[in-house]
């Protein structure tokens, strides 16, 4: 073996354990998934692309996919709208407030998804905090249905995924040169104008990074979707689970998984590429 390649392979030595784990736990299952999806029947007979055709020919399945992607987009947008005011307050605050805000943002990350989701069930349930409060104040005549609704699910996911958006957005706003805002103000711009013409465009890479993280996390959030959305709302993660575990149709659920994975990563890459192309004068995140 030539000496150069010896040293190169020595350099790669420390990566081998991780690479092996990645291969065994990710590449192999993915390959298995691809293989399984190519069978025509749940009994693994006959290779064909029929599972994919079945998906795209079935308006119900396509609707489940678009609903799921839409949920991710909606939650990501909601966290984005909440993250900016938070970031602006953060930047304007002193050291103590900053620490407190950081702690409050990180707090949800320190508890399990299941716990956070059950908290939302307690809040939104028929006898939950919101309903009891509104009823006892006499503002509502009958308990409203909050749990097992689309809006309830968006609300819970927005709270749960907010840290993924808030951290990159705060980081981008922090890195802005304060003189840019002062320059805009001196030139006569109102606060709203400064936000839309200076702060937003210059922090777009952070916002896009956060949007993509939340989008992917919310679209694939099996536990929260299932517990807060309930059985009525069928989205891709529960659909896959139902086809695999309930119907025992492994080839179809494998195809669903791959289509879903490709759709989410496709959107992530497309938006990443678009932002690199159209966001100018700012370091891409």
């Amino acid at each position, binding site marked *: 073996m030539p000496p150069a390649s010896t040293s190169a392979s020595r350099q790669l030595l420390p990566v081998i354990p991780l690479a092996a784990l990645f291969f065994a736990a990710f590449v192999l299952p993915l390959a298995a998934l691809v293989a399984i999806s190519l069978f025509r029947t749940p009994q693994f007979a006959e290779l064909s692309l029929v599972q994919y055709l079945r998906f795209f020919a079935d308006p119900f399945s396509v609707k489940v996919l678009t609903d799921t992607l839409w949920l991710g987009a909606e939650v990501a947008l909601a966290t984005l709208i909440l993250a900016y005011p938070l970031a602006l307050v953060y930047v304007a605050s002193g050291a103590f407030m900053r620490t407190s805000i950081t702690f409050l943002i990180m707090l949800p990350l320190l508890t399990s998804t299941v716990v956070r989701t059950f908290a939302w069930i307690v809040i939104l349930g028929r006898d939950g905090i919101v309903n009891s409060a509104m009823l006892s104040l006499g503002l509502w005549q009958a308990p409203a249905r909050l749990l097992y609704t689309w809006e309830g699910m968006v609300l819970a996911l927005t709270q749960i995924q907010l840290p993924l958006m808030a951290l990159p957005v705060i980081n981008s706003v922090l890195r802005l*040169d304060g*003189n*840019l805002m*002062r*320059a*805009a*103000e*001196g*030139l*006569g*711009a*109102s606060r709203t*104008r400064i936000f839309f*013409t*200076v702060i937003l*465009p*210059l922090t777009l890479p952070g916002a896009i990074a956060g949007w993509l993280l939340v989008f992917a996390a919310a679209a694939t959030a099996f536990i929260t979707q299932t517990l807060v959305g309930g059985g009525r709302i069928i989205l891709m993660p529960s659909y896959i689970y139902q086809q695999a575990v309930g119907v025992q149709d492994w080839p179809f659920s494998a195809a669903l998984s791959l289509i879903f994975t490709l759709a989410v990563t496709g959107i992530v890459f497309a938006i990443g590429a678009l932002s690199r192309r159209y*966001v*100018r*004068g*700012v370091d891409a995140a």
Partner: protein
Amino acid sequence: MSDARGHSLDLSGIGHAFGATVALDEINLAVAAGELIALLGPSGCGKTTMLQIIAGFLRPSKGEVRFDGARVEHIPANRRRIGMVFQNYALFPHLTVFENVAYGLRARKTPKAEVTAKVEQMLGLAQMAAFARRLPGELSGGQQQRVALARALAIDPGLVLLDEPFSALDKNLRLDMQIEIKSLLKTFGVTSVIVTHDQEEALSMADRIVVLNKGRIEQIDSPDALYDRPTSLFISSFIGHTNLLRGVVTETDRVKLDSGPEIDLGRSVQRWRGTPVTLSVRPENIELGASERPGAIPVTIRATVPLGAVSVTEGVTANGEAVKISQARAATSARAATGSTAWLSITDTSRVSVFSTPVADSSNNQHRSI
């Protein structure tokens, strides 16, 4: 376009404190319309606070700010019609040169055709017309500064504030830009305030210089007056280079220097006999002689440094005071050898400033320069 279109600016009794720290105290300053003023002082002297108060980013704890006689403390920065040029230029990195210059006009909802015409005019004046579609990141420091000034002037400001505008530029480019920007500001007739810690910048740009020290105004004067007639020891060592020589008053017009000779100043020093004083003598006001003369100070030559047009020689007096002598270079062809003894005499005693020696100041080697 040469009429003064700027505001007059009046500051009276301005004071500002950050918590317990007093940043500015009893600031009184009247700036005439079209005048170019420099706020000069070491870092922490309060000049940036003063700029922020004028700009409206900061409300003074006390005192009044007037533009053309009308009080403006309650008017927010975005309605003061002030053009600002920042140290790092603060150009919007995501907007083209054209869009940067147009920003203030668009914020004022100026009609589109008018915006285009005004921006083109400004870019023409700043010699940046060819770069209209570039992003700031694609420009050199000098070009960015031209754009920053064009952006500030595009809104027809009554007042332009420049915060350390040249400190990010190469030394070679600095003087060129100073001349160019001074002439642009004068063409516009706009009242301008430059904040700087660099005395050369203040001397080359300003009609009058306001020297700030520890939150107070030390002196307001023209560059020449500040250099020739400093009113305090601080100013004499802050503006230009100087030599501080200690002595004691012996007669109304005579000072016996600690380094030996008695100097006849040719005028009354207006202090009692026996008062310790410090004389400030500019390096170019000293002659270097090879032989002993009456009234000459003996020094040991430490080094001679050629600085282009002049050469600077440093000597040390018998009592340890370092003295710099600046001479036209031809004169130093017969250069004093390092380690040799030479005799210094003051060329023009009328240009020597006399200050009482600060009581607390006990060190005897007080040569300071910026």
